[in-house]
């Protein structure tokens, strides 16, 4: 059972480039989330999805986009990368958040230079 898989683990982008952070889970979870973690700031919610075809903005969505065409996959797209998007990005999923919390991926460290 692979859980939540994020790729890549590390990436360096130049300002203005675009990329997609991949997230897939094999647990048939409906709930999926993207967070960013900045030093001393905890985790901030970027986007979330409560099922295939349904997405919505979190606390810090500017500069990002998501899609959820399948239950398994929840990619995060960065358009026109900026230094402020340098962060560690976590994908998470859950079957029942109130009962089990979230299962997190191992994160992607992104640096924009």
């Amino acid at each position, binding site marked *: 059972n692979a859980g939540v898989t994020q790729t890549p683990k590390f990436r360096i982008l130049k300002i203005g480039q675009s990329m997609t952070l991949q997230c897939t889970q094999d647990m048939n979870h409906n709930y999926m*989330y993207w967070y960013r973690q900045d030093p*001393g700031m*905890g985790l901030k919610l970027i986007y979330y999805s409560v099922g295939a075809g349904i997405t919505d903005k979190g606390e810090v969505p500017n500069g990002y986009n998501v899609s959820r065409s399948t239950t398994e996959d929840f990619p995060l797209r960065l358009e026109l990368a900026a230094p402020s998007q340098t962060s560690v990005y976590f994908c998470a999923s859950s079957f029942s958040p*109130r009962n089990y919390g979230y299962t*997190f991926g191992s994160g992607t460290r992104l640096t924009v230079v």
Partner: protein
Amino acid sequence: AQTVTQSQPEMSVQEAETVTLSCTYDTSESDYYLFWYKQPPSRQMILVIRQEAYKQQNATENRFSVNFQKAAKSFSLKISDSQLGDAAMYFCARLDTGTASKLTFGTGTRLQVTL
């Protein structure tokens, strides 16, 4: 914004001793859930313990227990018999029970365990 506050950026404990990490939160809901997550240097987020707001009994998981004070909106984590492997960042989080079931995190407490 409804916040989660961890006022201790860093804590230190000797091996085999007990340490308590503090957390306070803000919410207007009556039904919510609280969590503590551990993040070791590997970066992986690991669920430590969960508390249901409507239950008065404090949650316990082996050496980890909470002191949940609903009226004070306080949710502290006690680690007993501390081990070197407990060294990590610890995040307190509140789950809102709306459709999205979003977790709001505190800023974390870095725990050092010394010999």
